[in-house]
């Protein structure tokens, strides 16, 4: 559908990557770990190695959950744009195909101490 307007309606997104001074936005969720009320928004360099991203950006954000300390990263599962995704920890975000405003979801179905019970 297109907007209904009396005149041409030119509009520009205000969130393009060019506005982030060389960085890009990446959204992060840890499925079923709901002590964190919403997905996180992060602003990072596209050249950051994925492993470094996990260690320096993701890990501090989720440290308040007791499960965070015992995540086995070799077994962790990921979704990107809600589709299964296998990141290479040694390569950069860009090389992994993680672009501006992509949403990553971390899944650790064997862990859920606080929010309990449900399988993930």
């Amino acid at each position, binding site marked *: 559908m297109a907007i209904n307007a009396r005149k041409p309606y030119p*509009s520009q997104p*205000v969130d393009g990557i060019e506005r982030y001074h060389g960085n890009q936005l990446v*959204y992060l969720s840890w499925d079923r770990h*709901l002590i964190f*009320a*919403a*997905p996180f928004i992060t602003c990072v360099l596209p050249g950051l190695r994925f492993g470094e991203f996990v260690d320096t950006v993701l890990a501090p954000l989720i440290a308040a959950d007791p499960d965070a300390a015992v995540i086995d990263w070799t077994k962790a599962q990921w979704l990107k744009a809600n589709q299964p995704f296998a990141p290479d920890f040694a390569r950069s975000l860009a090389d992994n195909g993680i672009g501006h*405003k992509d949403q990553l979801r971390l899944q650790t179905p064997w862990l859920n101490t606080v929010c309990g019970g449900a399988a993930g």
Partner: protein
Amino acid sequence: MDMKVQKAKLGLKERYRLMTRDLGWTPSYQPPEALFPYAGYEGIVIHDWEKWEDPFRLTMDAYWKYQAEKDRKFYAIIDAQAQNNGHLNITDARYLSALKIFLQAISPGEYAAHKGFARVGREFPGVGTQVACQMQAIDELRHAQTQIHALSNYNRYYNGFHAFIQQRDRIWYNSVPRSFFDDAMSGGPFEFIIAIGFSFEYVLTNLLFVPFMSGAAYNGDMATVTFGFSAQSDEARHMTLGLECIKFVLEQDPRNVPIVQRWLDKWFWRGLRLLSLVGTMMDYMLPKRVMSWAEAWDIYGEDNGGALFRDLARYGIRPPAGWADAGKARDHISHQFMLALYQWSFGTAFHGWIPSDDDMDWLSAKYPDTFDRYYRPRWMHFRKLAEAGTPFRNVGLAKLCQTCQFPCVFTEADDPTLLCHRELEREGHRYHFCSDHCQTIFEHEPEKYVQAWLPMNQLFQGTSGGGGIENWMKWVNLVDGQDNGDFEGSQDQRNFAAWKGQSTTNAR
């Protein structure tokens, strides 16, 4: 000498005719389309504006008289409240968080509604509609003023009230109500009146005003009760205007039905999202509670709304698309939102807190299917961290919905253990949504919503104060350590206790 005897007074009907319908005229220098350029582009077809029935038959002279009388009463009570330290009569200073949210989020909305109704009063061709919209425009302005005046007395004593004007535009959570009204005001006149006049004022306003004003009464807040009463007769008129408007539009032409239906789908959902703040207030922020959000939803949403949409079915209107999902979210949203406000309270101009054992028992009783199962464990975890001296602060910022601009705190309609993730790509850009319904709203008018000014994203662009949390706090006029954070240990908590003590004991 023969003189014609003048009738002493005009009859009601005649007065109404002269003071409303008779004020209109048929233009001769310009075609009607040039005078009313916005009346046609939305696709709504009106054959006869004379069919518009004004249910109140209120004329401007009578209107001024009634409103002046109400204002006199209102300001007499507000003065008395201020002179008698009425702020110490509230049940507990935690209650103030509800007032701060109201002043920051809702009162500016009254002002936005004033601007919107003033505009559509000019844009609608029918004179009956013009006069009704003009009165509502003045009502909304009066509501904004009386609310600000009523709450200004609290601003003399407590934190978080002082910068509501700047915070309306700048602080992250207020982009929810702001975008709601901006969206309505940037629509055409028919969409605006269906959005605000019908969907908000008629379908949802009872969920806002009844619990809020009863909550004020239960918690000793005379100022809020007074502006509530002063607004109540206006609200009745607004609701009737909203209902009259939708029936008038639906009766004029069958082509109007699908357009109106889409607006109902959209504005019901946007309104519901906005009101999740009210649910949080009812379930968590009132020290003495009136009813739960779930109970209010059953009465004012399910029962009243259900009856309304059964009544509209004869025009071919069905309940809004989000109706069933709204019912499923009933037992969840207030908990999800208070948990969020608590963990982000470093960035709010009001206080959050962990509910007490008594509070949690009340919540279990009101939400037997959800509270103990899903939400108590999270609160208990937060309490454990607080007691250990390491209170939980969510150090991350939140992903916002491109449409409603809420942080994406909402779970899947059928799975309360999983956050709802929705996204789409358009012209090389990616957009995220809190729900299917917000995504659908975007898909209908993507050109509008791609421009959304999302506060979290802007923070990273460096536009909100120049980058960094400290600059951001200055920019939003948030005084760190006073306006924000946990209620436990706050200046509001200490001052209220001290002043209350002085008023009831010999403490100095």
